[in-house]
């Protein structure tokens, strides 16, 4: 039995959270899913500030681009230099067709991007790949 992988989903839309949850179920991977609803909370979580003092460093971050308070770009800018965050794969979730948005995120250090809604084999393959790292 492989270990559960820690996934942080940063997503403001409840509907999109639901879809992601279902996609994870479909993927059949053992996941501890943590959800935060905006960029600020994401930064607090990843830097283990209250109320996320005891949060485990995630194995993968699914980061929405378009969010209130801080958007995905701001979050990337803020956390990519944190010591515990240098190696963590970050996947950008975007509804945007714009190459510019993805390119900008890429320059800020994303590892991969998925088009929303998150469903089908894409996320499953990704989670499986992450899990295989921990075998």
């Amino acid at each position, binding site marked *: 039995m492989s270990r559960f992988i820690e996934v942080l989903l940063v997503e403001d839309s409840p509907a999109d959270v639901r*879809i992601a949850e279902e996609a994870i179920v479909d993927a059949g991977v053992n996941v501890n899913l943590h959800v935060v609803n905006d960029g600020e909370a994401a930064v607090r979580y990843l830097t283990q500030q209250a109320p996320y003092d005891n949060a485990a460093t995630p194995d993968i971050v699914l980061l929405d681009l378009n969010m209130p308070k801080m958007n995905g770009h701001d979050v990337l800018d803020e956390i990519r230099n944190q010591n515990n965050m240098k190696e963590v794969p970050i996947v950008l979730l975007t*509804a945007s*067709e714009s190459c510019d948005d993805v390119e900008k995120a890429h320059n800020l250090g994303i590892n991969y991007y998925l088009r*929303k809604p998150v*469903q089908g084999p894409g996320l499953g393959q990704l989670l499986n790949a992450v899990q295989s790292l921990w075998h």
Partner: protein
Amino acid sequence: MTNGVYIHRSLEGVLPDANLLHVKVRTKEILEKELQRREIASKYDLDLEFQPEGTVTTAQTDRLNAREEGRCKQSLMNHGADILRNFAGIKPILPYVVAVSITILCTLVGMAMTPFVDEENFCMLYLLGVVLVSCRYGLGASLLAVLLSVASYDFFVVSPHFTLARSETPCLLTFITMLVVALTMSGLTARVKQHAKQLDMRVKERTYELAVANEALKVEVASRAQAEERLKEAVEELARSNTALAQFAKIASHDLQEPLRSLRGFTDLLTRRYAGKLDEKADEFIEHINDCGKRMERIIEGVLSHARVQGSDRPFVNVNLNDSVKEAMKNLEVAIKESGANISVDELPTVKGDALQLVQLFQNFLANAIKFRREEPLRVKISCAESVGSDEMAAYLDVDDDLPRAFWHVSIRDNGTGFESRHTKDVFTMFKRVHSGQVYAGTGIGLAICKAIVERHGGNIWVDTMRNGGSTFHFTMPIVTDSEKSAA
């Protein structure tokens, strides 16, 4: 243009004898319009009035005269000079005073010289006096001078002195000679004066006409400058609103896209997990939701793509259109195979442009041809010719200017359904679909994107078509010279 008479009242004082100006101004409308604005009229102290040619009557002239008094400085000065000239009747008396004075002067000289000079010679002195008077002061004064001269000559100069007793032939001869000289000279003088006066008048008239024409020209120049300014502002405004619209389309589509994607996510989940598990109607409803979602997605993608073309600032590079067509055909490979389309492509030129957009251009044309094919096998022919702007194109575009440079004229001809020729402009408008949606799926954006792309490349787009007779889409692109190519 109407020719007309402009009465330029403020300048009338300059021309005491001619209060009317007959200036033909080609641009009556402009002048009138500008006068309505009052700004220019007040700036130049102009008061212009338009009257159709030939309707200016003497009564009007008089009325204008009366109204004009004291209207402007020039007028006042002239008026003052007239008053001075007439003051105390100086004007009519002066010549006679001069005539008398000259005669007296001649007499005094004659009397003083009598001891030394032969007295007959003095008649020449008097003749000189008469000539001088008649040259300067007209007939009346010169006649007076003649009479006085003859009398004085007889009375004071010729002996026996102080008597008019000598009435012999030489004296009569002197009188007749002087009379003839006086008449001739004063007649000549009068004519010369009259000519001079006429000449002066004409000079003034011309000056006046010129002044008015000059004013009219100033007004026209000002109005043209204004029109140009307004045009520039309008163009800038248009560019601004265009950018704003593209921006709006982008943002709106973006925000529409997010909830739509969630919606599609859930319907996908429904389909995958519940298809066949609910009743038949539920399956049908899910399918409809899916179809509508897909369609809306395509529309939003279209709008975004249109906005991207307009808002794009990717620099132009040399693009070989043959490559663009090849790429477009590769993207449409499946559809081309399925439809069994036969696409033939002539040798195409290299233009300056956006490679991705030019692929999209041909792709949209080809997709359009495939979509609107008929039963018979689809044939598409892409050809190109050099053109300096055909009459046909000029007629379509409502331009009569000489097109500044040569264009490549690319045609995409198909044997598809075609459409009614009254729709030839509509097809390039967003969301205008000339076929009913039931028969042909489509978003109505493809050709609008083509138009945006062609226009961004400095060309024009149009179509020839007939219902059931196929369509030929045309577009133009500026020809790139070899030097421009190497500069890129």
